[in-house]
C-alpha cells in the first residue's frame, strides 16, 4: 500500500507540474486527466472505491471532455509568453504558499484527536462504500438530492434560453 501511495504521489505531482509548464494547452489538459487518475488512485488506497469511480467518471470523463472541447473550439495551439507576466507569478506564488501553509497546518494537527462519525474504516469495509452512500442519499439526504435534481433542471432551462438565437 505504501509503495502504491508513493507511486501515485509521484504521478500526481509530476502531472500537475506538467499541466502548468506545458506550452501546448491540449497537452496540459491531457496531463490534467493523468493527475485526476492519480487522485482516483489515492481514493482507492483509502478504501473509497465509489469516490474513485466518480472522480474518473465526472472529472476525467465529463469535465475534461468539456475543457478539451473548448480548447479545440478556440483553436489555441500554443501559448507564446508563458510565465513572463510578473503579476500572475506573484499571485500564483501567493496562492501556492497559502495552500502549502494549509497542508502544513493539517499535518501538524493531524495527530490530534478529531471528532469522528459512526462509520469507521472497518465498518465501511464490512458494509461497502456504495451501499452506505446510497442509503444516505435515500434517507437522510433525500431532500438535498431532490433539490439538486430540480436545480439541474432549471440550469437546463437557462442553457436553452441563452443558447436560443431568437424567441
Amino acid at each position: 500500500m505504501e509503495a502504491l501511495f508513493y507511486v501515485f504521489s509521484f504521478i500526481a505531482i509530476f502531472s500537475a507540474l506538467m499541466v502548468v509548464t506545458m506550452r501546448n494547452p491540449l497537452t496540459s489538459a491531457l496531463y490534467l486527466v493523468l493527475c485526476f487518475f492519480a487522485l482516483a488512485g489515492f481514493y482507492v488506497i483509502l478504501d473509497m472505491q465509489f469516490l474513485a469511480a466518480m472522480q474518473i467518471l465526472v472529472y476525467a470523463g465529463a469535465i475534461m471532455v468539456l475543457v478539451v472541447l473548448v480548447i479545440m473550439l478556440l483553436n489555441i495551439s500554443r501559448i507564446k509568453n508563458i510565465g513572463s507576466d510578473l503579476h500572475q507569478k506573484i499571485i500564483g506564488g501567493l496562492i501556492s504558499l497559502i495552500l502549502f501553509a494549509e497542508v502544513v497546518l493539517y499535518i501538524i494537527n493531524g495527530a490530534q484527536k478529531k471528532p469522528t462519525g459512526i462509520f469507521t474504516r472497518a465498518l465501511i469495509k464490512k458494509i461497502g462504500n456504495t451501499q452506505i452512500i446510497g442509503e444516505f442519499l435515500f434517507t437522510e439526504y433525500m431532500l438535498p438530492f431532490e433539490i439538486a435534481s430540480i436545480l439541474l433542471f432549471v440550469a437546463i432551462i437557462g442553457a436553452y434560453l441563452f443558447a436560443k438565437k431568437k424567441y
Partner: protein
Amino acid sequence: MHNMPLIYGMNFLEKSMLSIIPETVIIIFAFMVLFLAFFEKLAKRKNSYYLSLIGIGFSILYVLMLSDRNIYGFYGSVVFNGFEVFLFIAILFSGMFTVLMSKDYMENSGMPAPEYYSLILFGLSAMMFLVSSNNLIMVFLSIEFMSICAYILTGYIKGDTRSTEAALKYFILGAFASAFLLFGAVFIYAATGHLNLYAIHSFLENISYAGSNKAVGGIGIKIYISAGLVMFLVGLAFKMSLFPFHSWTPDAYDGAPTPITNFMATGIKLAAFAIFLRIYSLIYNFNIMNFNDILWLLAVFSMTFGNIAALLSSNIKRLLAYSSIAQAGYILIGIIGGGFYGYSGTLFYLLAYIFMTAGAFAVVVIFENSDIISLDIKRYAGIGYKYPFIAAAMSFFLLSFAGIPLTSGFMGKFYVFSSAVKSGYNWLVLIALLNSAFAAFYYIKIIVKMYMPDKEPASPPLNSSGDNLGIISGAIDDGLMLTIIICLILTLLMGVFPQIFINFANNSADLLWRI
C-alpha cells in the same frame, strides 16, 4: 442531542412532506406554468401570469394553515415553525409583487412568458427552502438554486448587451462567492463533524462548557471553525450585498428586467438575511472570534459607501441599487445588536424594506412601460403634476427609505437602532444616524425633482402619440396599481400601527431563540 418535538400519530413521510408543502406547491405550479409552453394556444402571456399568481396564493394558504405547527422534516434537515411562517409570507409577497409587475413589462418586451414566470416560481421555492433549511448541505444547495434562477432571469432580455453583461458579471462573481460558501461549510464540517445546524450548535456548546477548549480537538478546531465561519460569511455577504462584496449589485440591478430587479432586491436579500440570522444565532453567537467586530465594519462601510454612491448616481435603478446596499447595512445593525429585540427588529425591518422597495420599483416599472420617462432621474422633473397619485406614492416610499416618521422605514430604523443601543453599540448607531440623515438628502432630491415644474421647454414625449397626459391613465396595468396600493397601505400601517407587525416579528424571533 437537541429535543426534537415529535408529532405523534404521524409517520415519517407524512411529517416530512408536511414540512415542505408550501415549497412543493410552488414547484408544482412552476412545472405547470412551464408545461404551458408546450401548447401554442395556451402559451399566451396571460395564462402563465394568472397561473403563477394562483400558485403563490395556494402557497400562502398552506403557510397560514400550518402556521401553528413546529415540524422537523427529513431527519431534521428542514424546519418549519413560526420563524419560517413569517419569512415565507414575506418571500411570497415579494414573489407576488414581482409577478404582478411583470405582466405589462412582458407584453412590451415580447419575451417568452412561461419560462419567465416558472423561473420566478422556482426562485421563490429556492428562497423558501433556504429559509427553512437546517443543514449545511441544504443551505448550499438552495443558495445555488436561488442564484441560478436569478442569473438566468438577469440575462433574460435577449439582445440587450447590458442585460447579458449583467448576467455574466453576476454569474462569475456569484460562482466565486458560492465557492467561498462551500469551502466555509467544509471547514465547519471538518471542525465539528456535523452538518445539522442544531448539532453544530450543541457541539460548540459542549466545547464552551468544557472551558479550556482542550476537551475535543484543542486549538485546531478553533482555527478551522473560525476560517470556516469567515468564508461562510463572505458567501452570504455576497448575497446580502454588503460593502466589500457588493460590486455586482449596481450592474446586475441595472441590467436586469426591472421586475427582476425587485425580485433580487427584496426576495434574495430577505432570504440571505434570514439564513444568516439563523446561522448567526446558532453558530456565530459563540464568539469563537470577534465576529461582531467584522460585522460592525461591514455595516459601517455598507451604509457609508452605499449612500455616497447613491448620491452620485443619476440612473434611478442604480440609485435604488446603491440605496439597497445602504439599507443592508442598517438591517445588519439589528443582527449586531443581537438578543431578542435585535432579531425581531431585524425581521420587522426586513418586512418593511420589502414593501417600500417593491412599491418604489413598481413606480419605476410604470414609467419604464409608458416610455415617457426613461430611467434617468432628470426626466422625472415635473411628473408630480402630471401623475399626482403615482408621484405621491413614490414620494411616500422614498420618505420611508429615508426613515421619516409615520412611515415603516422610521419604525424599522427606530427598532433596530434602539436594540443596538441596548447592547452598547453607541458609536455604530451614531454613524448610522448620520448616514440616514445624509441619505435623506438624495431621497428628497428625487421628490423635489418630481414636484419641480418641467423647466426644459421642449422635452418631447418619447413615444409618438403626442399627448403625454392621457397615455398613462389608460395604460397602467391593474397589477402594478395593485402592487403600489398594497405597498402603500402596508408601509403606512407599519409606520402608524406597528404593534401588530411587531407582535408577529416577536413571535417568530421567539421561535428562533428557543432551540
